[in-house]
């Protein structure tokens, strides 16, 4: 599957470059001095207990949350000053499907295709539906679909504009075996196409298997960061568990 538009974006060396990122919500810190780098064609697995800041980090990257301090550069664009360009570079699958219950899967994707200004929208929508195996139920309203089906369409929505950085916030939730295999193939296809992936997950084995880099967050701070080649599942697990015990 084609997963990104090759003739877009400047010649950025890195997909993600974050330095000193901090964010507090009304006095409660969510991210503290986070540093992170990710190259093209690489995947990052994000671990941490609930409330560690994984969702906040991802939401900051997709421009839903504004950082308090630090520099954030995505595909060469500054997150604060070039937010609109960043949005055209990123694809997001979050906890919410971002799909309208009373519209069909096809109608939802066509709406987003229009919003993203995708040329030849109808054909791209059909292709996206086929890529996630949703063609069979594309004419049914989202309201009647199962969670797994909704998730597939949500993934199609995220990839519709061929983003260069795909961000997934706990994407396995609600997926059956077929869905999980689809997710794996999507991630690998995205990487093969030269784009990058950031995925937060509670499954350390799966994350480790798919990723080139890992990052463990603990109450907003980086507890562990490195290439998967330089660490192990055990070390990551200890880092995650250790932080939760320290916090409790």
């Amino acid at each position, binding site marked *: 599957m084609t997963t990104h538009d090759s003739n877009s974006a400047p010649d950025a060396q890195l997909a993600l470059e974050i330095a000193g990122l901090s964010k*507090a*919500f*009304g*006095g409660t*810190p969510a991210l503290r001095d986070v540093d992170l780098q990710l190259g093209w064609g690489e995947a990052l697995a994000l671990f941490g207990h609930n409330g560690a800041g994984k969702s906040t980090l991802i939401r900051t990257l997709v421009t839903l949350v504004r950082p308090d301090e630090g520099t954030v550069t995505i595909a060469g664009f500054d997150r604060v000053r070039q937010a609109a360009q960043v949005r055209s570079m990123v694809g997001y699958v979050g906890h919410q499907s971002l799909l309208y219950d009373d519209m069909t899967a096809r109608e939802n994707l066509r709406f987003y295709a229009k919003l993203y200004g995708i040329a030849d929208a109808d054909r791209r929508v059909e292709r996206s539906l086929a890529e996630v195996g949703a063609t069979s139920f594309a004419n049914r309203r989202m309201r009647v679909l199962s969670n797994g089906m909704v998730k597939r369409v949500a993934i199609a929505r995220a990839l519709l504009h061929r983003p260069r950085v795909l961000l997934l916030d706990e994407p396995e939730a609600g997926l059956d075996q077929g869905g999980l295999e689809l997710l794996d193939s999507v991630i690998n296809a995205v990487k093969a196409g030269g784009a990058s992936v950031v995925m937060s997950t509670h499954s350390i084995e799966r994350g480790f298997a798919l990723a080139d880099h890992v990052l463990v967050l603990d109450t907003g701070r980086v507890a562990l960061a490195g290439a998967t080649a330089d660490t192990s599942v055990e070390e990551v697990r200890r880092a995650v568990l250790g932080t939760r015990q320290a916090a409790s």
Partner: protein
Amino acid sequence: MASAAGPRSRAMGLGGRQLLLGVAALVFMIDLVLIFGYAPTASEALGVQVQRIFYFHVPSAIVGMISFGVSAFGSVMYLIKRTRKWDRLAWASAEAGTIIFTVAIATGAIWAKPVWQTWWVWDANGTLTFMLWLVFIGYLITRAYAPTVDRGARWAAVVAIFGAAAVPFVYMAADWWAGLHTERVTGPGASGSLESEMFYTLIFSLVTFGFLFAVLVAERSAQRSIEEQIETLRREVT
């Protein structure tokens, strides 16, 4: 002069605030003397002794409007600069302004009822006073119901700016409406010509309410500044 607020805040230090409070109290006492001793007793038409409430009503209404201007200005600066001091100023001005406007409305009603047989005169000034009071209340309630303090600050700043932008429209519309629908009453809002003793008393009362406003804003800003510093220290420790 020891500054309890600390070097990083820009709120007035304790010494400065105590001085301000002292001056304000002094000015207030002199004002009371002027209002009840120096200002002339009014005519039957204006309510005789009740008329002295004019020296509370008009200055509080004017200072209320000034406080609205300060709050709106602080709001604009906050949205541009994003520094805490501007938000503290806007917020404290809104709180002080709400209190001062309440005084203006209450004294207006107390004066209007026995003299003009109506609780409020809906002329341009009266309508504007009431409307700005409502906007201030909306400002405070918005902050109270916001999910976080930051969003509350931003939303409230927008509310204040919208209120300020609406002022000329409200004034014009209320003026036209009052011209069409109510008899022109030499009500609390009418100026007319003032005898010199009345004029000087009025000006002095205006200064008094100005000091009241300044004291309220200074105290509230300093309090918030200290609260914020405590919060920052607490976060650094955990």
